[in-house]
């Protein structure tokens, strides 16, 4: 069976009718016991399994997914990858992710199509431009790339934006991060799944966790729709459904679940080769390789577990888009979707012990989980393998809500998330 993806093997299999490929992952029956069970077969869960096996040599690992791989938010996002945050803790975390993404296609032998096309965060007034300068300085001090753009720099990167004299929100400049970009979201899930499977991880789909097995105050495993599975340590990486698991096991979470919508337009000729975000207009967009505009914005304001969006936010996001890129006003939408995201009070993730012995958390990524998949998986694998924090994950321990040492990126970098 052909396993490795290469130009030679694609050519050879093409000549043989593609009959010799080894399936990307097995469909194993769950074993009665594992060293580590990860709940959630999205990007974070699969990446955690991969780094557990690869970096820590822990291979008796199962990933339990209630639906199909990457069927949650990993397959429902706008694929932006960036590290344009304010606080040192956040830049350390998200820049680790960008760095891992930079080598990911080679590492996984799977093309995740990370395109470092750069990202513009636009400013529309002098005070906003001053705050942008502050963010650029902070990013540079924290060791990631950032440049402060004036209006002419923005016009060179994205001439289709609204540079009219009578623009309601004239463009004053932007924060530019050239290493930002977009990736192929499904490929990230599939690439991690395939690589983890090759290292011996069992990926078990259609297996929903229905309860935790708690003995003497310690979690010893999970009850699932496919039977009882015991485990040394359990990691929960279920994004918007984190509170549902917390309710089963009885640990507190500072999370509220909301729907986040995104939109894709009909495919068209290339109009923009970067990611453009206008916080004032509440909208960002990029263009996919297929030609569709991928458009995102803020959260729905009604707490929700329904994977569908509401009309007021659609109206706000799309009217924001035609405000800062009016040339797109005639473009038709092809489809739209919503994912359930886990929002924390400080818009930063939660990594670490849950409060119930044996259960560990990877959640609270809110609207920005996709960009953090490699770092989330890398750090969560460290926590699950060693029982200790990595120095980058330590500030994101849930204890910060008791000590008051929050990492408030919602306020600091002005990025609603």
């Amino acid at each position, binding site marked *: 069976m052909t396993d490795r993806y290469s130009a030679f093997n694609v050519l050879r299999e093409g000549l043989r009718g593609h009959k010799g490929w080894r399936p990307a992952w097995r469909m194993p029956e769950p074993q009665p016991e594992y060293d580590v069970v990860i709940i959630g077969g999205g990007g974070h869960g699969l990446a955690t399994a991969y780094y557990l096996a690869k970096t820590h040599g822990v291979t008796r690992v199962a990933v339990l997914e209630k639906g199909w791989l990457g069927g949650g938010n990993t397959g429902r996002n706008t694929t932006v990858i960036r590290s344009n945050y304010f606080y040192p803790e956040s830049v350390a975390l998200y820049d680790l992710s960008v760095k891992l993404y930079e080598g990911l296609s080679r590492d996984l032998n799977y093309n995740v199509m990370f395109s470092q096309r750069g990202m513009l965060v636009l400013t529309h007034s002098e005070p906003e431009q001053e705050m942008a300068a502050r963010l650029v300085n902070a990013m540079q001090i924290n060791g990631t790339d950032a440049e402060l753009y004036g209006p002419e720099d923005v016009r060179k990167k994205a001439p289709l934006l609204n540079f009219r004299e009578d623009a309601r929100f004239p463009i004053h400049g932007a924060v530019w991060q050239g290493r930002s970009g977009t990736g192929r979201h499904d490929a990230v899930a599939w690439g991690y799944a395939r690589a983890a499977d090759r290292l011996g991880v069992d990926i078990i789909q259609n297996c929903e966790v229905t309860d935790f097995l708690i003995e003497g105050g310690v979690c010893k495993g999970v009850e699932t729709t496919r039977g009882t599975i015991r485990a040394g340590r359990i990691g929960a990486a279920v994004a918007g459904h984190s509170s549902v698991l917390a*309710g089963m096991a009885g640990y507190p979470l500072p999370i509220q679940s909301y729907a986040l919508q995104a939109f894709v337009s009909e495919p068209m000729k290339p109009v923009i080769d970067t990611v453009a975000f206008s916080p004032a207009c509440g909208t960002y967009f990029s263009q996919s390789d297929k030609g569709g505009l991928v458009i995102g914005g803020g959260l729905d304001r009604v*707490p929700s577990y329904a994977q569908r969006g509401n009309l007021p936010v659609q109206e706000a996001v799309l009217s924001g888009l035609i405000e800062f890129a009016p040339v797109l006003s005639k473009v038709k939408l092809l489809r739209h979707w919503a994912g359930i995201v886990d929002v924390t*009070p400080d818009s930063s993730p939660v990594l670490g012990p849950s409060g119930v012995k044996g259960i560990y958390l990877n959640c609270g990524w809110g609207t920005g989980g996709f960009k953090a998949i490699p770092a989330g998986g890398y750090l969560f694998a460290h926590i699950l393998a060693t029982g200790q924090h990595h120095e980058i994950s330590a500030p994101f321990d849930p204890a910060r*809500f008791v000590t008051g040492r929050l990492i408030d990126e919602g306020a600091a970098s002005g990025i609603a998330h």
Partner: protein
Amino acid sequence: MQRFPCPFCGLRDEREFHFAGPAGKVRPDTTKAVSAEDWADYLYTQPNAKGVVREVWVHTTCQEYFVMERNSATMEVLGSTALRKDAS
């Protein structure tokens, strides 16, 4: 577009409402010492249930706070109750 029932104004556009938090939280008694854990629990812990939820909402146009019961998975509204005793 969903419409929510304000106990004072009747069915109104969802854009007029703002989610204020889960119902039933009691602010710690500040006449006594309050531990950091109790403050954290009050300020940050959310029940965030999937299914039937009881929440405090404010109707921003009339500025009245009220309790709304709804289903967070189907988005069906089950009812709303004024927080003040007499809604008239």
